[in-house]
């Protein structure tokens, strides 16, 4: 038990110190922190018992316990394949990216001027994918290979819907990974798509077929020509999506050269640990003509106001935050941090390095095959990259299960007469020898010797399959090959980005709180990092224990009964939760229920997920207090009562208010046969104080990358587990390879059974080290901080929505629309904040023309005060424009952000000084952040699309 303040983790996590809290309570005019909470949270939803969760423990206790828990995982050597392979994370990338808050704390790069570092890194990733797949464009990552395949299916379906009415069948090759087939099947049903799995060579591409999905190399390792198949599909009017492997593609003719329309896969083996399922970045590459139908973020190149090249997210109008239920996908958080790591792996090794790794893996696979041949075992296919499929007698398989497992060699046990072995970058000659030894023992034969010295081999595949085209030819893949160069490149990019290591990031609804270093440490320990997601669960007892505890804690926190840890993001959780509701309703003869009520203020993922679940979205109006219009809700629930599936509600609302009518709202929905889905994005205002069950929800997702401290990673990883009431528990998602989920489980919604399992350790650490009381205190201080900002700023900016008593929850909205007639917008304020060293709050969500501020409990009082100082100064700058003392067009706001280059140029033509531009307040001098570029021209970027690394000449002045 903690005995002194240095031991109490809550004191390290929570920014304001006890006397700061006292001062803040006084500043908001409350009698005490408890009294404030009574004013913020409606009494009829308050929890009256402490959270029944383990903890608290000190950081030292946590780390010691994690060592013990880790001992109960036995990673061994994973030779299972199926999209997950051992690999070597270069230490320079591990230390300087994965374990570095400069890379893992930033947000999604919406404010591109202060995100040029990770935007360049993501562009490197896109370029790596484009080159290796032979396609024209690639996005900046999807959640995993299986969902990327499902997105490919949805995209092909959308594209074909224009020309081929009624074509609703997808042909899926039997050679696709089982988890891909499961996820694709689950995603197909709500879209009315029929899946036909079979041997592609024998399947007919008639006019009912809109698309074909295949795996290249196949799941059994086979490398077979696919060009003819693709031609046949096209001749039949279908599009073709190919799931592939980046390392294989360094040697194999890329699908893009064979006519593929979409190529997807997992980039994990490019230097990202397996992590018992994740996190990993999936890639998605396609034709230029399909760019507007492509899901996910796409990084592009534009220019800033000085005409210099500048990176940004292109074509955001495809995405859920703009297109809502008509978005190309519901994806929001992706896997940016891992995409960056995979891109840096390619940068560090270059084309020749990657080819060398591939040849080595391939060569060892061939040697292994030779040795097995000497034992009388013939691999199923002569042409493979890294994977062998072996038909054996059941007796041999049985012995292998025991002997190989005992030796720490984990094969894929396909069935009782077949075994798969996949080699990887970490495989050594000694490993091959040991595999042969184990086989020989199982077969009672002498051990064959195979020479594994100098194993690199050029593939012996048919000529048409041998890759001839160059790749990674851009200079960036050649210039950072020594560790010194790589370290400096990583640091130079890092310095261009604002993260929580720089300053507060008060993004409303994002909950940018501390990820303690101690929480991240175990994630990369081998006992947690090196487990394959499909390894026998007996080898993962450490993880299993953590999952059980995490699920129990999430139940205690939400008041619900069962949890699935499978969803990799909030949006994926929304989809899973809606599918669970629909499965329950179908089971009770109510499958016709297909209307989802969604408040107009909802996050864009809500309607996008509802569309993905095959439901019709009906928008419920907000009243002029910003709350759900209960009258409108009643009317619409009544109108749709026979078809009402669910209501999706965020609580407190996306406006940051604990709506008093929440019980009434939930009751109306239940009365008409619907279920209540709660979006957990604002859970930072709930933990320990209220709960999803208290307000009447049946299911909710929890953004672990918000309230539960998984860092935002620049746009992922995330985790979005769902918690459900008892009646929905049987439907929690299953998995085709590892037993998870309920008795009547819906199909898997992610590739890995427990999603990105390794980062669950972070949330586990957060909960354990704070304990129930610590988490409740965190919630209370989060709400205190938001009300403190309100007290300090409300005389300078209009606050948009509050409770009747004037209190806000954990976030608040400042309304800047009054300044629009002067030509000053919320964008100008966002860019001007960069000059003060701050990332802007959430701009124009949920209300256009406003800024939503969420400080979180981690920000110390002096940082909150600096933020206030900046906003108050900016209000003064706006006033100068109003009063006419500043030029309406040539002022500090319209020209923001100001770069070092312009501040130090020989000429300065503005009516304000350089000092006013870049050092507007004294505190800025002590912590000056220099935006790498001036304000970016968004329209230029969307009109002239460039989505891979431009030639070096583009950067020269």
């Amino acid at each position: 038990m903690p005995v002194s303040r240095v031991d109490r983790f809550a004191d390290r996590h929570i920014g304001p110190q006890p006397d700061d809290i006292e001062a803040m309570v006084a500043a908001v005019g409350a009698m005490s922190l408890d009294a404030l909470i009574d004013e913020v949270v409606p009494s009829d939803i308050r929890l009256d018992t402490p959270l029944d969760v383990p903890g608290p423990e000190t950081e030292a206790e946590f780390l010691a316990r994690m060592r013990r828990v880790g001992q109960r995982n036995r990673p061994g050597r994973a030779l299972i394949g199926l999209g997950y392979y051992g690999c070597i994370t270069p230490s320079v990338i591990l230390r300087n990216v994965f374990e570095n808050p400069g890379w893992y704390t930033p947000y999604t790069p919406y404010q591109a001027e202060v995100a040029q570092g990770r935007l360049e890194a993501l562009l490197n990733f896109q370029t790596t994918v484009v080159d290796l797949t032979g396609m024209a464009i690639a996005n900046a990552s999807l959640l995993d290979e299986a969902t990327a395949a499902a997105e490919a299916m949805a995209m092909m379906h959308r594209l074909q819907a224009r020309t081929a009415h009624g074509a609703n069948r997808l042909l899926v090759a039997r050679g696709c990974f089982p988890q891909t087939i499961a996820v694709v099947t689950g995603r197909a049903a709500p879209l009315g798509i029929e899946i036909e799995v079979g041997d592609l060579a024998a399947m007919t591409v008639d006019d009912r077929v809109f698309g074909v999905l295949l795996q290249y190399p196949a799941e059994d390792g086979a490398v077979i020509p696919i060009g003819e198949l693709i031609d046949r599909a096209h001749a039949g009017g279908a599009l073709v999506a190919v799931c592939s492997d980046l390392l294989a593609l360094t040697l194999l003719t890329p699908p893009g050269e064979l006519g593929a329309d979409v190529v997807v896969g997992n980039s994990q083996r490019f230097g990202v640990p397996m992590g018992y399922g994740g996190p990993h970045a999936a890639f998605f590459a396609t034709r230029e003509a399909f760019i507007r139908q492509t899901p996910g973020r796409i990084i592009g190149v534009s220019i800033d106001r000085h005409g210099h090249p500048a990176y940004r997210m292109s074509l955001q109008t495809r995405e859920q935050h703009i297109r809502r239920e008509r978005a190309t996908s519901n994806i929001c958080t992706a896997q940016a941090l891992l995409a960056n790591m995979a891109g840096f792996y390619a940068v560090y090794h270059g084309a020749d390095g990657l080819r060398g790794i591939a040849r080595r893996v391939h060569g060892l696979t061939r040697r292994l095959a030779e040795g097995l041949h000497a034992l009388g075992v013939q691999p199923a296919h002569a042409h493979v990259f890294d994977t062998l499929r072996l038909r054996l007698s059941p007796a041999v398989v049985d012995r292998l299960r025991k002997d190989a497992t005992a030796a720490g060699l984990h094969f894929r046990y396909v069935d009782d007469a077949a075994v798969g072995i996949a080699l990887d970058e970490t495989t050594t000659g000694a490993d091959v020898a040991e595999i042969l030894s184990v086989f020989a023992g199982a077969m009672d034969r002498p051990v064959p010797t195979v020479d594994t010295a100098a194993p690199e081999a050029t593939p012996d595949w048919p000529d048409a399959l041998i890759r001839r085209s160059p790749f990674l030819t851009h200079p960036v893949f050649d210039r950072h090959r020594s560790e010194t160069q790589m370290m400096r490149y990583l640091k130079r990019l890092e310095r261009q980005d604002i993260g929580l290591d720089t300053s507060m990031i008060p993004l409303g609804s994002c909950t940018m709180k501390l990820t303690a270093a101690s929480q991240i440490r175990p994630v990369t320990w081998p006992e947690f990092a090196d487990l394959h997601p499909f390894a026998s669960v007996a080898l993962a007892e450490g993880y299993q224990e953590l999952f059980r505890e995490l699920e129990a804690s999430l139940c205690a926190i939400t008041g619900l009964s069962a949890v699935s840890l499978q969803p990799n993001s909030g949006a994926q959780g929304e989809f899973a939760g809606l599918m669970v509701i629909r499965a329950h309703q179908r089971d009770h003869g109510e499958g016709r229920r297909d209307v989802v009520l969604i408040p107009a203020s909802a996050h864009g993922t809500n309607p996008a997920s509802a569309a993905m679940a095959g439901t019709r979205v009906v928008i419920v109006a907000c009243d002029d207090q910003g709350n759900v219009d209960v009258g409108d809700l009643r009317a619409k629930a009544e109108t749709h009562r026979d078809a009402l599936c669910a209501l999706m509600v965020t609580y407190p609302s996306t406006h940051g208010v604990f709506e008093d009518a929440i019980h009434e709202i939930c009751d109306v929905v239940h009365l008409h046969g619907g279920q209540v889905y709660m979006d957990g994005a604002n859970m930072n205002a709930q933990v320990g104080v209220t709960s999803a069950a208290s307000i009447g929800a049946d299911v909710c997702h929890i953004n672990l990358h918000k309230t539960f401290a998984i860092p935002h990673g620049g746009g992922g990883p995330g985790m979005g587990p769902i918690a459900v009431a008892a009646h929905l528990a049987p439907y929690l998602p299953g998995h085709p390879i590892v037993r998870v989920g309920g008795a009547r489980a819906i199909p898997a919604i992610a590739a890995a059974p427990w999603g990105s399992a390794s980062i669950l350790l972070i949330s586990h650490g957060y909960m354990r080290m704070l304990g129930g009381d610590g988490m409740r205190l965190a919630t209370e201080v989060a709400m205190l901080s938001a009300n403190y900002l309100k007290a300090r700023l409300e005389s300078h900016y209009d606050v948009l929505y509050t409770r009747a008593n004037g209190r806000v929850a954990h976030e608040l909205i400042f309304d800047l629309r009054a300044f629009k007639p002067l030509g000053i917008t919320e964008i100008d304020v966002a860019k001007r904040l960069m000059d003060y060293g701050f990332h802007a709050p959430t701009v124009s969500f949920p209300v256009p023309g406003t800024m939503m501020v969420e400080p979180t409990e981690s920000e110390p009082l002096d940082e909150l005060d600096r933020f206030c100082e900046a906003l108050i100064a900016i209000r003064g700058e706006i006033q100068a424009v109003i009063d006419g003392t500043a030029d309406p067009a040539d002022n500090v706001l319209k020209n923001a952000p100001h770069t070092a280059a312009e501040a130090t140029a020989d000429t300065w033509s503005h009516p304000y000084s350089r000092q006013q531009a870049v050092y507007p307040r004294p505190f800025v001098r002590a912590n000056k952040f220099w935006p790498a570029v001036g304000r970016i021209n968004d329209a230029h970027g969307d009109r002239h699309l460039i989505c891979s690394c431009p030639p070096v000449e583009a950067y020269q002045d």
Partner: protein
Amino acid sequence: MYPSDRHYTKEHEWISVSGTTARVGITDYAQQQLGDVVFVELPDVGQTFDQGAQFGSIESVKAVSDLYCPMAGTVVEVNTTLVDRPETVNADPHGVWIIAIELTHPDQTAGLIDAGAYAELVS
């Protein structure tokens, strides 16, 4: 402000009829709301649309708006200059047309409003 030589819709399109053909575009109010136009999704020549049916869309950096056919007709021409220069819609919204249609019912102007009523609507 809003030219009186044409009809308008509540969805902020204009339609300029001449005999049995008409040209369609978006209003100044619409282009202001959208911001810098970066892309116009055009229908194919030969496609037929009912009154009020969606014939395309127009995108800026931060928004997408559907385009609805003010009067029923068949597309006879699309303004291909919008492919390379979509921003011309912002510069001259009442001059730059998006599609030209052969009207199915040239006299069927119910549901359309005149310049004065439209100016009222957006004030």
